[in-house]
C-alpha cells in the first residue's frame, strides 16, 4: 500500500467515530488523502516509519493529525508528546479529538503543544460542523511552515 502523500492522519480507536469523521470531511469537500490508524502505537509506527510503515518516506509529513485522546496501548497524549518534541515534526498541526470535556488532560495537551482541542459533539449536525471547520481551517486556510 502506498502511504505517500497522506495529508490527514486520523488516529481513532473507535471505528464509528472514524467513519463519521471521514464522512464529515468528505461531505465538507475535503477529499485530501486520509489514512486511519486505530491506536497510538500504530500512529507512532506511521509517523516514524516503523513496523508495517518502515518503507514509508519519512520526509512525507502529513498536513494534519487528528488525534483521539483516549486510546488503548499508546494514548493520544503520548503520541502528541513524541510529535511535538521532534524538531522535524513539531510544526505539524495536531488537533486533539475527545469524547469528553471532563478529561484531566486538556491543559496538559495545550502545554505539550496541541493546536486545537475538540470535544466531539453528540449531535451529528454539530459533529459534522466541527469536523468541517477543523478541516477547512487546518488544511485550507492554515499555511504550514514547510
Amino acid at each position: 500500500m502506498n502511504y505517500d502523500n497522506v495529508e490527514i492522519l486520523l488516529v481513532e480507536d473507535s471505528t464509528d467515530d472514524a467513519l463519521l469523521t471521514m464522512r464529515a470531511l468528505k461531505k465538507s469537500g475535503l477529499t485530501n488523502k486520509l489514512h486511519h490508524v486505530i491506536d497510538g502505537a500504530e500512529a507512532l509506527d506511521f509517523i516514524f516509519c516503523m513496523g508495517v510503515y518502515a518503507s514509508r518516506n519519512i520526509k512525507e509529513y502529513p498536513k494534519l493529525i487528528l488525534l483521539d485522546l483516549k486510546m488503548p496501548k499508546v494514548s493520544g497524549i503520548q503520541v502528541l508528546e513524541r510529535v511535538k518534541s521532534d524538531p522535524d515534526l513539531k510544526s505539524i498541526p495536531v488537533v486533539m479529538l475527545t469524547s469528553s470535556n471532563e478529561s484531566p488532560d486538556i491543559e496538559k495537551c495545550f502545554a505539550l503543544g496541541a493546536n486545537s482541542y475538540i470535544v466531539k459533539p453528540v449531535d451529528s449536525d454539530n459533529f459534522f460542523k466541527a469536523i468541517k471547520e477543523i478541516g477547512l481551517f487546518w488544511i485550507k486556510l492554515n499555511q504550514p511552515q514547510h
Partner: protein
Amino acid sequence: MRAYSYVNLVIADQKILNTAFLENPEYYCSFKDSPKKSNHCCINYPILFKKKHLYLRDMKKNDSDELIIAYKELAFQHQEKENRAAELIIANKELIFQNEEKEHRAAELIIANKELAFQNEEKENRAAELVIANIELAFQNKEKEKRAEELIIANRELKQAEDDIRKLNDELEQKVIERTAQLEAVNKELGSFSYSVSHDLRAPIRAINGYTKILQEDYADKFDADGVKVLQTIIRNSKKMGELIDDLLAFSKLGRKQVTVSAVDMNELVTIVREELLFEDGENIPVFDVKILPPAKGDKSLIKQVWINLISNALKYSRKKNKTTVEIGAYEQNNLIVYYVKDAGAGFDMQYYDKLFGVFQRLHSHEEFDGTGIGLAIVQKIIHRHKGTVWAESALNEGTCFYFSLPKTNPLN
C-alpha cells in the same frame, strides 16, 4: 593626879564627871542605876562639886606639878578629841552626803530598775508578740506551702489538660487529614467517574445519532413518511440524551469546582452575557432595561453562568409573547446585594415553587419550552456556594422575577 579645877570640871562636862565618879565611886553608885539618873546627877552636881572642891584643895599642894602636866596632857587629848570630833563631824557629813548620794543613786537605780523592769516587760511583751507572730508566720508558711502544693497540683492538672487538648487537637488534625484524604479520594473518584460517564456514554450516543443521520441522508428514499419520522425521533432523543449527560456533568462539576472569590463588576458581566446571546430567526429581540448594578464578591466565571442561565431563561419563557422585555436591577438588603432578572413571559404557578430549583425538574413540558431542567439547579448551587440565596416570584402568564443575593464587596478592597 587628883587636882581638878572647878572651871575645868564645868568645861569637862560629862567626861569630867566620869573621872570624878572614878575618884568616888561609892557616892555615885547609889544613883547610877536609878531610872532618873541624869536628873538626879544634875540635881546633885553642886553637892558633888562642893565635895570635890574641898577634896582638891587638900590635894592642891602636892599635885600641882603633876597637874600641869596632866592638864597639858588633857588639853592635848582634848584637842585631839575635838579634832577627832571635828573630823568625825566632817566624816559624818561626808557619810551623810555619801548616804544621800547613795540614796539618790539608789532612787535612780530604783527608777533605772523600774525602767529596766518596764523594758523587760516590754521585751517580754514583744517576745510574746514575736512568738505569736512567729506562730502566725509558721502558719502562713504552712498555708503557703499548702497553696504551693495546690498550685503544683493545679499546674500539673493544667499541664495534663493542655496535653489532653494537644492530643485531641492532634487527633482532630489527624482526622481532618484522613477525612481530607478520603474526600480527595472521593473527589478524584468522582472526577474519573464523570470523565468515564461523559466519555463512555457520549460515544455510543454519538454513534446512534450519527448513524441515524446517515440513514436519514443516504437512505431517505428507503423510508416512508413514518420511517423518516422515527429517524428524526431517534436523532432528537439521542441529542437530548447527550445534553442531559452534559448538564448532569456540568452540575456535578460545580460541586467540585474551587470557588475563587474576587470583586465582580456586575454591569460589565451582564453586558458581556448580553453580547454573547445568539438569536434564532424570527425570535423576538429583547428589550433590556439594565439598572446600575453594584459590584459583588464572587467567582466571576460562576456568577457569569448565573447571569447566562437567568437571562436565557427570561428570553426562553418570553418567546411566546409578542414582545420580550427584561429588567435587570439590584438593591441592598442587610449587608447583601440582591440582584434580580424580571421578565414578562409565561410565568409559572407558585404552587409548584418547591420544584423550581430541583435538578431536572421542569414546570413546563418539553413541547412548550425546551430544556433539561438543569439551569436553575445550577443557579441555585452557584449561589449557595457563594453563601447567597436565590428565590423567585411569578404569576402565570404575567412573568417571573428571579432574585439572588451575594455578599457586598468591602469598599476598602
